[in-house]
């Protein structure tokens, strides 16, 4: 499998069921800034990674960790073996800056591994920045189907844990309990352990839980990617509803048509850097071109060709 195969799992889907997402595209009415991202860097520490090998394969945002103080012992050990003290760092977000305003719906696009989800989580404040800063008004919340709950417990307990973790009071959780169960459409399965759920049921319940609270800034991570057509329509309606109250939303999705239908502004992230920021049509047109070019290169046997040429251009250009 080539590198480009791995990276190009992007849903171009011009034939995406548009009826699920119909309705007028939101119109931007930019107001006051509600979110300022200032030169954000996110660095993950990865244990057991073999930085030298990965870096040699051309991923220039992975490098060996330079611990501030490396003892003689540590250096001896790491020079002799990749299995002891093998710590590498993944520089997932490399200096991103932007300002989001009240009323904007911002889509974040990029190929797999470009740092979209990390950026979203960092903007929500869930992953502390390595350097730089994120400034927000109010409390942003992440709405997603990936919110990790406790699979060994029943859906009922998970609704409680999720609701309370979102900051709801026990009374509010009780009030919204039935609503969550209805929305997730899981019926009596709510009393069974979540690990017995089908993946669709689990995703629906997680989405229902995470949308139980209405935040000031809403972050959506691939929420529309799961579920059948009926659930997609329902979650679109729910997001619209939340958006009316939330004011500002961020959406990460592989489905270009979802971004097109929901967003007024698009950020294109590539290898942890912001390469384009502008109106939906303008950015998505360029992004489509980019993805198509890669597809063609792939299928016409130039698979390996993404390598050196493209990579030379991707060299970190310090912002």
């Amino acid at each position, binding site marked *: 499998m080539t590198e480009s195969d791995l990276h190009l799992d992007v849903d171009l889907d011009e034939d995406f069921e548009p009826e699920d997402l119909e309705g007028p595209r939101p119109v*931007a009415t930019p107001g006051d*800034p509600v979110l*300022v991202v*200032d*030169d954000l860097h996110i*660095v*993950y*520490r990865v*244990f057991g990674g073999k930085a030298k090998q990965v870096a040699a394969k051309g991923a220039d945002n992975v490098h060996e960790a330079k611990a501030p103080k490396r003892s003689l012992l540590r250096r001896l050990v790491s020079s002799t073996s990749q299995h002891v003290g093998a710590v590498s760092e993944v520089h997932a977000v490399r200096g991103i*800056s*932007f*300002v989001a305003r009240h009323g*904007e719906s911002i889509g974040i696009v990029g190929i797999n591994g470009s740092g979209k989800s990390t950026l979203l989580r960092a903007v*929500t*404040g*869930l*992953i*502390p*920045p390595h350097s*730089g*800063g*994120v*400034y*927000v*008004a109010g409390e942003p919340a992440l709405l*997603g189907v990936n*919110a*990790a709950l*406790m699979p*060994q*417990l029943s859906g009922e*307990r998970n609704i*409680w*844990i999720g609701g*309370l*973790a*979102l900051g709801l009071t026990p009374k509010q959780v009780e009030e919204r309990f039935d609503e969550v169960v209805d929305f997730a459409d899981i019926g009596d399965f709510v009393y069974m352990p979540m690990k017995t759920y089908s993946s669709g049921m689990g995703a629906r319940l997680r989405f229902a839980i995470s949308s139980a609270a209405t935040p000031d800034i809403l972050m959506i991570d691939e929420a529309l990617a799961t579920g059948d057509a009926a659930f997609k329509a329902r979650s679109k309606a729910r997001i619209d509803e939340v958006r009316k109250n939330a004011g500002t939303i961020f959406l990460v999705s592989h489905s270009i048509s979802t971004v097109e239908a929901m967003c*007024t*502004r698009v950020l*294109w992230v590539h290898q942890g*850097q*912001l*390469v*384009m*920021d*502008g*109106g*939906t049509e*303008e*950015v998505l*047109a*360029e992004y489509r071109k*980019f993805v198509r070019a*890669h597809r063609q290169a792939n299928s016409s046997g130039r698979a390996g060709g993404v390598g050196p*040429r*493209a990579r030379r*251009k*991707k060299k970190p*250009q310090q*912002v």
Partner: protein
Amino acid sequence: MSTDTTTGAAPGDRGSPDAERDPLAPPAPIVPDTSSSERRALAEQFGLQQMGVRPPLGKYIRDVASRWAFIRVLGTATAYSKNQNNYLGQLWAVLNPILNATVYVLIFGVLLQASRGVENSIAFITIGTFLFRFFEQSVHAGSRSIAQKTNLIRSLHFPRAVLPIAQVVSLLTTLVPALLVMCAIVLLSGLLPKYAMVHVTWSWLLLPGIIALLWVFNTGVAFIVARAVAITPDLDNVIGFVLRLVMYGSGVIFPVTHYVDNLPEGVQAIAGPILEYQPIGVFLYVARSILTQEPSFPQDPWMWVWAAGWAVVAFVVGFIIFWRGEERYGRD
């Protein structure tokens, strides 16, 4: 319909389609048209708060306190889920400590006779193992509370101190039924011919008090190990050995202070007080003094003072240590 990134600045050339560009390469990264200080000033102008920074201690304490319902639900749910996957279910919460105590009673009490000088070694070892188990499990649970909940941390906002607290609460919920069994074993052991009688006295009412202090102490220690292991995962491997050292050094299964007498004079002067007044030793002393009538464990109010002191110190120091790392959890 490009949306301005910054106030008053022209969109500039960023994002403009470049016909000459290789279609396989993405556009060059945007150079922002505002400086870092301008952006920070903008954030300040509109009263935006910085994310991912540690809140002040007072606010943090209020945040944690307001999440008490979350702590309780998470704690009981964790406790429940632990014993869910077997036929006997929640019964294991009681059976486990009993089996644990049985092993030590058989080996150290009956076979090795290590508890010489104690009138009822079954009661002695049972109290020791039940209470030490609570401490041991709190440390283990605390050490994993951050590392194993990375997904939860990266998905939801809440003060991270909730996690170690909930872990210890979860152990407390399983400890309560186990303590009833412990008391029953202690009483019944007195009926055996070779073991001294144990009487129920007014001092048994003090048991919830020492358990509460131990709970506070355990939570404090859980805070410390939670941060240590979150930052340096390697320490997780060391904790088991340290705990075993603490177990043998605290007189959990034999009266360690008796063995000090065999040491040379100089060592005795140092080791004696340390072994006597170190926290686990103190908690076990108090528990044994209120539940049994061992002559070597008379009631001693000063030991209560020591226990309360250790609990408060561990909790306050642990909480502050944990809070100081707040902004780092979830990054690694």
